[in-house]
């Protein structure tokens, strides 16, 4: 009985931490991507709910799916923390602030859009988001290059050119990257067998 209570309590406090972390970033940051930085910091570094590598895998899965990145990330991370209930709580934390804020803002559109102080504050936070995202990119880069530099760097350069300069559709890129991974496995295992 006691142990069950303790388990329940742990789950409760986990769900609360999950909800609160996602809620606060969703209620403040202007870019959905900011959520990745906060998840890395709170769930990986501080609480050690999963490893840096698991978080990097999560980011890859989320980026291969359409829709709001922050919501998808909440879905996967919530699931890892506490199953489907965790997903539900995390997604709720993610969508509640924008819904409420947009409803309020639409009602007081003129007063808020014209407000210089709000604009300056939000613009300043955007500068912070640039710093946050740079940190996410750096930590992901360290993660993918830990087993060799050549393959990831070439693939990243190709993918960046594809997305940023060519602006081509991402689903094909995701499929292409997955196939590159499969091809690499087949080629490497063939090489090992030959030796």
């Amino acid at each position: 009985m006691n142990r069950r209570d303790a388990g329940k309590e742990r789950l409760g406090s986990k769900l609360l931490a999950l909800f609160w972390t996602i809620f606060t970033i969703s209620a403040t940051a202007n870019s959905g991507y900011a959520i990745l930085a906060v998840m890395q910091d709170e769930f990986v570094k501080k609480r050690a709910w999963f490893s840096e590598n698991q978080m990097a895998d999560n980011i890859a899965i989320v980026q291969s799916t359409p829709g709001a990145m922050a919501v998808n990330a909440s879905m996967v991370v919530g699931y890892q923390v506490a199953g489907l209930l965790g997903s539900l709580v995390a997604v709720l934390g993610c969508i509640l602030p924008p819904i409420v804020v947009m409803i309020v803002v639409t009602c007081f559109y003129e007063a808020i859009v014209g407000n210089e102080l709000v604009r300056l504050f939000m613009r300043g936070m955007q500068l912070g988001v640039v710093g946050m995202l740079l940190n996410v990119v750096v930590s992901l880069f360290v993660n993918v290059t830990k087993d060799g530099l050549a393959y990831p760097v070439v693939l990243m350069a190709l993918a960046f050119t594809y997305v940023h300069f060519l602006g081509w559709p991402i689903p094909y890129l995701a499929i292409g990257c997955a196939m590159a991974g499969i091809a690499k496995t087949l080629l490497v295992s063939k090489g090992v067998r030959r030796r």
Partner: protein
Amino acid sequence: MTLLIGIVLAFMRVSVIAFGGAYAAIPLVENEAVAVQGWMTYEQFADLVALDEITPGPIIINSATFVGMRVAGIPGAIAATLGSILIPCTLVMLLYRLYSRFKGSAMMDNVMVSLKCMAIALIASTLVRLAAAAFMPDGNLPSITRGCYTIVVMGTAFFLIHNRQISPLPVMLGCGLVNLVACSLLPLMA
């Protein structure tokens, strides 16, 4: 009720094709709300772009809520948000289950490394656009003071998070505050 179902379906359609974050999503929502459904004019939709700059949250959810709210009030806002998350949430879960099933195999490891490379490219692309938008808010090169100030704030934010292990949220709020104070006190910056 028919209108609410229409909203849900419209945003389901948008969400399935919205790959690659905010910059990809806005034109899709615009096309659906203005051209396909005729729910609002381009001018009304332009309000949304102004709002997105100053409101928190994922941009797809923001724009869905905005359009839903304009079309059918609070129920519309909720319908639009649900419509835009249902399919992506299901897809991401399916993908995650598939990944869990084969996790640890050499094949899956290589696929994940490749997809992580793609994720880096996507985030870096967003990063470049965000940095450019922050550096040149009106599309022109800023004054020297203004430009240096922007770079210093961005650099300090990165330094605090990366080297000093300070949590991203307070750093971001701090940047907002610094910008508010700096730009109100020193008109040169604004």
